[in-house]
């Protein structure tokens, strides 16, 4: 359906051919923009209806007071299904600290949350197929799990700003959420609006980059430089991805174009993860609660982890 639309617009109406770079790029752009936004609408609305009710307060209650392994499992699992916006990072962090949740577990949550979410997972299945979706989600869970554990070894407590320890959180009896069908619908519509407002530009940028890559980068160059098991391609991809940021959804079309041109799977995954998980704005927000040493360590641990994931997948595929 989306392909037919792109065929009509680009090849018939605009008169571009699939063999021209501009035609190929435009076709990719139209097809992915329509497909991704349609998927986003449906997925976010459905998730809103079903889930409706997983607030940060609820996550905190579910993670607190468990053994470390159980807490980490909960943190990673919940981080993977909650697409909180980075503006909630600070209250989340403080709330976790206040609940006595170990910092390592909190970091696991902070890694999992931006990198994996169910919306991105469904898009991955829809665009790259379920094998790649499973690889991405599995690797993301592993990185969040191990990354948090490694952070813990460095005793990050010493880098938490003093005022954070002093905050005492009130016991709120939160008003019961509206679970009627009308209430769920209203919540779902609000979610769609809220999430789309936050990510539409990342999606457009991602599709545009993917389209340019698809149309203009010669395949021979890609297979020559990024295809095989060249060891350096992975750290280079990670290093390139760290300063760049996009929402987890926005990197999918880029990955699609890269894979189609023959970039190795591990290299692509490492690139996706380092773009989605590490971002300067998020770092600056977290700087309000932890000192820069901890942030630098956080970035370094993740960069190493993504490189290892990339190499690992390049070896086995």
């Amino acid at each position, binding site marked *: 359906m989306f392909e037919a639309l792109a065929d009509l617009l680009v090849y018939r109406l605009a008169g571009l051919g699939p063999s021209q770079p501009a035609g190929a790029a435009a076709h990719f752009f139209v097809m992915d923009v329509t497909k991704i936004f349609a998927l986003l609408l449906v997925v976010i609305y459905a998730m809103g209806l079903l889930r409706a009710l997983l607030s940060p307060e609820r996550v905190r209650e579910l993670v607190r007071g468990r053994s470390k392994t159980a807490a980490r499992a909960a943190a990673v699992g919940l981080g993977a299904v909650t697409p909180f916006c980075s503006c909630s990072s600070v*209250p989340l962090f403080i709330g976790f600290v206040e609940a006595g949740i170990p910092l390592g577990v909190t970091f696991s949550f902070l890694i999992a949350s931006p990198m994996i979410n169910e919306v991105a997972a469904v898009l991955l299945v829809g665009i790259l197929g379920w094998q790649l979706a499973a690889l991405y989600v599995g690797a993301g869970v592993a990185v969040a799990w191990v990354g948090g554990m490694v952070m813990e070894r460095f005793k990050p407590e010493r880098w938490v700003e003093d005022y954070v320890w002093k905050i005492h959180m009130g016991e709120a009896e939160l008003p019961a959420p509206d679970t009627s069908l009308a209430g769920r619908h*209203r919540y779902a519509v609000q979610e769609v609006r809220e999430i789309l407002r936050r990510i539409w530009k990342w999606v457009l940028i991602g599709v545009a980059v993917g389209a340019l890559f698809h149309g203009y980068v010669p395949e021979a160059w890609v297979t020559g430089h990024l295809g095989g098991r060249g060891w350096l391609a992975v750290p280079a991809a990670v290093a390139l991805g760290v300063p760049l940021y996009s929402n987890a959804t926005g990197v999918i079309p880029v990955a699609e174009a890269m894979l189609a041109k023959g970039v190795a799977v591990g290299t692509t995954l490492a690139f996706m993860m380092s773009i989605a998980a590490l971002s300067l704005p998020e770092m600056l927000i977290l700087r309000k609660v932890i000192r820069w040493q901890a942030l630098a360590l956080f970035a370094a641990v993740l960069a190493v982890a993504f490189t290892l994931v990339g190499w690992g997948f390049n070896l086995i595929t």
Partner: protein
Amino acid sequence: MKQIKVLGSGCRNCEITANIIAQAAKEAGVEIALEKVTDITQIMGYGVMSTPGVVIDGKLVHAGGVPGPDQVRAWVKP
């Protein structure tokens, strides 16, 4: 007079929430004292992690997301 506080560290939704409450109060002809609480220590003191939150006369009535129009009308009912 009702004391209404909007909790939130200056995010866009917090502004929207404060505005629709002020608007609804005006339409209902009810005078309210509206205050925006932006200090994270105070916000957390109410037990709120997801902003915007709304507190009426010291009691938390809403947390997370822009409240619905019916909800807001109920809050400012004379």
